[in-house]
């Protein structure tokens, strides 16, 4: 049995109990990367030497009793939009192909303080814009369940790497579903925490008011443990929130007793694939069997979330990505005449089509004469969506629904039609608009063997509740390894 088939907590325990070591674990992860990553392309950068060196250091500290946490010595992948000092951070863009940050993102620093060993930087949609990880400058990541299919996105590299057992867990970021949707497509568990729970310092911004870093693991317990490690109040991030408690693991008691779960009828309408719908409703039943109380209700405003989201996210992105101009870092075109030509050529050559599309849209909706009609309208819509959730959480502890309307599409199917790709975000974006926590839990596969994920949405700061429900649900079915990983082992 490979160490990489274990959950992060199981592996951490073995390392603590000296059954294995951080170095052995790192070696196995690196071996698995060598075996499968030519096919899957989950990683943009793997620094083998650095990872092993780091694993040795961690092992010494474990032996010296300086590191005693559950993640000490456990190999992790970090999405390539999180800055890592001395390790290149590309956002899967030509723009940052050679960018080496001078500092490490707060979340990664917290993770390293917990003793996790970062083995590489995982592939993503360029600047986190996309739902398939096909917009990466470094080529698409493939779905370990079926390499003909996409892993979802934008944290596709992180989720696929966890599913393919190239690491024990990973960090992703979620602006409109970028942790939850690929987790569903890859059959792993992914959590998007309440806005402000994990510091965004060092996360290369896409939509600042929506971005949130979160864990991706094999199960809810791993996600809870990683969240405990990375969540912190950070004075360097002015939107960071001081939480009353950073204890999440203790919420997992195997039961869903007493949880009131709302099932929004508007999440189960025409757009939802039949098999996905079936699996999700079965999962809901399973939760009921664990003690939860289910009730259908109308959430309302669901169809307005995507247009509001794309206005806000594109507008913020157009501003956030303005800094990539060929002056301080990143790509600069070879030949240019004067300053503005240098700007235009560097940016046009450095960014891919999807990024340019969103920057253009964002610049347009903010331009003179359009601000009220688009941006302000979107902010008002956001307020109404938040209210709709507030009303729902007066009655329910959480909302249960799909993470995506379908299972993973084939490579190349989505890019030609951006709008329909955007529509795939219908169940995820409203959570970001309202700043809520959401978790995706695998709940079976479709007829083609592609994973399906159930999404649980909690009220703000209620990660404990959704983690508890996710964990309770896991008690009703075993974790399914993807065929590729099962075969390798």
């Amino acid at each position, binding site marked *: 049995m490979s160490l990489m088939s274990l959950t992060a907590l199981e592996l951490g325990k073995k390392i603590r109990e000296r059954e294995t070591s951080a170095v052995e674990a790192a070696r196995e992860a690196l071996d698995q990367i060598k075996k499968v990553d030519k096919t899957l392309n989950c990683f943009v950068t793997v620094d083998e030497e650095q990872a092993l060196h780091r694993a040795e250091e961690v092992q010494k500290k474990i032996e010296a009793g300086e590191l005693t946490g559950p993640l000490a010595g456990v190999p992790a992948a970090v999405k390539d939009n999180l800055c890592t000092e001395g390790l290149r951070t590309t956002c899967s863009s030509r723009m940052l192909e050679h960018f080496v940050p001078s500092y490490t993102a707060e979340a990664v620093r917290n993770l390293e303080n917990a003793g996790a060993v970062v083995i590489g930087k995982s592939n993503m949609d360029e600047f986190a814009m996309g739902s398939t990880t096909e917009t990466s400058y470094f080529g698409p990541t493939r779905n370990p369940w079926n390499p003909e299919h996409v892993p979802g996105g934008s944290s596709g590299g992180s989720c696929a790497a966890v599913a393919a057992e190239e690491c024990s867990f990973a960090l992703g970021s979620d602006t409109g579903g970028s942790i939850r949707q690929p987790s569903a497509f890859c059959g792993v568990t992914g959590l998007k925490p309440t806005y402000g729970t994990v510091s965004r310092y060092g996360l290369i911004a896409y939509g600042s008011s929506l971005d949130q870093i979160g864990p991706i693991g094999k199960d809810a317990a791993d996600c809870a443990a990683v969240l405990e490690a990375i969540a912190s109040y950070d004075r360097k991030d002015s939107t960071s929130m001081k939480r009353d408690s950073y204890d999440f693991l203790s919420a997992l008691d195997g039961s869903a007793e007493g949880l009131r779960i709302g099932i929004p009828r508007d999440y189960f309408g025409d757009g939802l694939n039949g098999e996905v719908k079936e699996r999700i409703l079965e999962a809901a039943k399973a939760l009921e069997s664990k003690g939860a109380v289910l009730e259908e209700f109308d959430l309302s405003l669901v169809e307005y979330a995507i247009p509001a989201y794309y206005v806000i996210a594109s507008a913020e992105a157009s501003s956030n990505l303005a800094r990539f101009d060929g002056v301080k*870092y990143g790509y600069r075109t070879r030949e240019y005449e*004067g*300053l503005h030509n240098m700007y*235009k050529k560097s940016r*046009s050559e450095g*960014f891919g089509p999807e990024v340019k599309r969103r920057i253009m849209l964002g610049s347009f909706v903010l331009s003179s004469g359009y601000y009220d009609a688009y941006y302000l*309208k979107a902010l008002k*819509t956001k307020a109404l969506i*938040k209210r709709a959730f507030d009303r729902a959480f007066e009655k329910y502890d959480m909302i249960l629904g799909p993470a995506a309307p379908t299972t993973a599409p084939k490579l190349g199917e989505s890019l030609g039609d951006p709008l329909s790709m*955007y529509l795939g975000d219908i169940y995820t974006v409203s959570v970001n608009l309202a700043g809520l926590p959401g978790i995706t839990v695998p709940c079976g596969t479709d007829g083609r063997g592609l994973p399906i994920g159930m999404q649980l949405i909690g009220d703000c700061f209620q990660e404990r509740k959704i983690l508890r429900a996710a964990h309770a649900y896991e008690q009703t079915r075993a974790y399914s390894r993807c065929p590729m990983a099962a075969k390798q082992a």
Partner: protein
Amino acid sequence: MANMISDETMEYVGILAKLELSQEEREQAKKDMEQMLDYIDMLNTLDTDGVEPMSHVFPIHNVFREDTVENTDEHEKMLANAPSAKDGAFKVPKTVE
């Protein structure tokens, strides 16, 4: 299609965003943008009269630093990523005529 984006608008947005699209890219981008804006126009069917626009989802305020110097000089690390540098500064094409 309800929204029609002119070539002038595309050029104007290109100036704002500092992007220069090829003819082909521009045609595609125009089409995509029109399609997106048509879709976004759906927001107009939602009555938002009297709704306060929400930019920050949580009502936090007054997050401050105290006025004390903490940073140290790390300009060499910073300049290591510069596409072009000279004398400790970032080098750019001449900015005055």
